[in-house]
């Protein structure tokens, strides 16, 4: 088990390294000119060269990568004698725009993504599995058709549409809710909750569809299994048959997808939701950094998200081993 974990983590590290290399070369090889952007409109050639030098952009790309890679483990110092920025290990670089270490910004923004992602994930998995189970049990009946119809709507709408609609209806028109946004839970728990209701609802509407359909089909498959007939043949009540014997088996494939979704969401993939509701999360950070050609931040957000997805993979495998006794983690 421990050996398996170590092996998986090593493999994850290798994957992350590959992602780092690819992202680095894609963005740093692009014909963008961050130095010019940083320099502003009235920029003399000598100032430009200075900035290029201080950003390290005058070096060869291989050297730049090596500096970056080294920084991950030992940290880095940026700038010249006048302005000196220390970026401690693991250093993901320093933003061209704000001169703050990328990791600091990421960690500042992370609680917002964690709140948004985890909250929504718990809600959509509970609701989705519940609805899917009801639909499977009532297959072909009204409840099934309603659940499937709902799922269909959820699949076809777009996040920004749902988000803006909810905002317009509940905040502007009916004024049931205060404006959305992120308040740290440590500052104001009630505000934290209220501000996130709509973003959560938006994500739930969009993700619910998939989980409902997944659970429904997984459940229906399980219903046709022999062991379900055995469960009935024992004289178990219908509820126990469905919830204990059925759900226990049907949930297994859902765990995998749920793990990935959670990893991606808290890694900052709820970009559109963040921007619709004005949440300063990692998704928004990523979008801004692309607009500003802020290469270190682009790289940092990409790596951050990738780390969560890769780690989610490892966690999913471990959980799978616990849930399915037939899987031997060795």
């Amino acid at each position: 088990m421990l050996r398996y974990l170590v092996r998986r983590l090593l493999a994850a590290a290798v994957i992350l390294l590959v992602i780092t290399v690819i992202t680095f070369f894609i963005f740093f090889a692009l014909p963008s000119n961050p130095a010019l952007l940083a320099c502003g409109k009235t920029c003399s050639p000598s100032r430009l060269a200075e900035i290029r030098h201080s950003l390290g952009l005058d070096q060869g790309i291989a050297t730049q990568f090596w500096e970056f890679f080294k920084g991950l483990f030992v940290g880095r110092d940026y700038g010249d004698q006048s302005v000196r920025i220390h970026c401690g290990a693991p250093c993901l670089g320093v933003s061209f725009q704000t001169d703050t270490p990328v990791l600091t910004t990421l960690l500042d923004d992370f609680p917002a993504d964690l709140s948004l992602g985890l909250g929504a994930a718990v809600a959509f998995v509970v609701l989705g599995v519940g609805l899917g189970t009801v639909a499977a049990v009532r297959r072909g009946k009204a409840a099934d058709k309603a659940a499937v119809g709902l799922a269909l709507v959820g699949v076809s709408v777009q996040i920004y549409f749902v988000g803006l609609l909810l905002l317009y209806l509940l905040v502007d028109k009916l004024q049931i809710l205060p404006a959305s946004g992120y308040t740290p839970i440590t500052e104001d728990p009630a505000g934290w909750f209220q501000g996130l209701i709509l973003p959560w609802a938006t994500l739930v509407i969009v993700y619910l569809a998939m989980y409902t359909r997944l659970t429904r089909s997984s459940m229906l498959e399980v219903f046709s299994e022999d062991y379900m007939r055995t469960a009935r043949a024992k004289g178990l009540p219908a509820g126990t048959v469905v919830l204990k014997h059925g759900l226990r088996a049907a949930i297994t494939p859902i765990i995998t997808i749920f793990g990935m979704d959670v990893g991606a969401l808290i890694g900052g993939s709820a970009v559109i939701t963040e921007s619709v509701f004005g949440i300063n999360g990692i998704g928004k950070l990523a979008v801004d950094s692309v607009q500003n050609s802020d290469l270190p931040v682009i790289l940092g957000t990409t790596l951050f998200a990738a780390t969560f997805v890769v780690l989610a993979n490892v966690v999913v495998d471990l959980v799978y081993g616990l849930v399915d006794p037939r899987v031997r983690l060795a």
Partner: protein
Amino acid sequence: MSLQTSPQPADVTTAPPPFLDVRDLRVHFPTEDGLVRSVDGVSFTLEKGQTLGIVGESGSGKSVTSLALLGLHKGTRAQVSGEIWLDGRELVGLPEQEMRALRGSTVSMIFQDPLSALHPFFTVGAQIAEAYRVHHRVSKKEARDRAVEMLRRVGIPQPELRVKDYPHQFSGGMRQRAMIAMSLVCDPALLIADEPTTALDVTVQAQILDLIRDLQEEFGSAVVIITHDLGVVADVADDILVMYGGRRVEYGTARDVLKQPEHPYTWGLLQSMPQIEGDVSRRLNPIPGSPPSLINLPGGCAFHPRCTYKGWVPEGRCTVERPELLAVSGTAGHIAACHLTAESKTQIRGDGAARAAK
């Protein structure tokens, strides 16, 4: 058609009603292609301590019959009619709640493939204990002890350790033993074994059959053994019911049916019995042709498209007139549905024996 339901001699005036009395059972499934008549007018009786073997090829309606005995068609689209009397109670019309109380406790079932019939995510012990706790108000600990005890009874070595294993950690034979332990955990009065040995190799098959027989003696249950292999029931059954296309074609005591089979389909089954000696997996002379459609059963005798003896019956009666289940003279309750005359049968059987002797 004869509704005669028992091959056992019964004293009409004084005999109590049979323990299990199935009368004209029909299980039909409406499907897009038409009405599937999986079981169509099947009757039989069974006493406590006795064993009935239900024999027939794949698709002859054996499993559907057994599921009806457990009331497992309730709540599905299956249309069930007829009567199933168990110990004075009629099961076909019984509400699901009451049927559920009988399932696993009074009537229980051993399924064909223990690997798929046991839940892969629960330990064997938990599954047996669960079956006990549904019908008994006992603590988890007591139920677990009972599970260990049952595993010991069915001959699983080190039951107190194996009780914690998952089904996939058991061998095929052990899984079937565990399945048997689970089905007997509440001392059922009626045990149905649906092809209990098909998934097992021959030596294990014999062990499992011995086990069922021993346990039956111990518990005094009535047992229905379902199989497509007459060899399986030859040793253990008191009565044999041969099914074809959802109907009875022959029914009688095991002695009568095996010694003097009356129906060409039974002859076919007997000839296709795997021989215990020699190459075990080789089946001799399987019946040519394939099982009939249950939506459009062939007219006349349902077996006629595959019957090699229909020529012995004059005027092509086999294709137009459905043979009735008639009593075989000189026997108690042996019935068969075939137009062949007694003389023809004797002659054909003689030929077969002569050929087999060569």
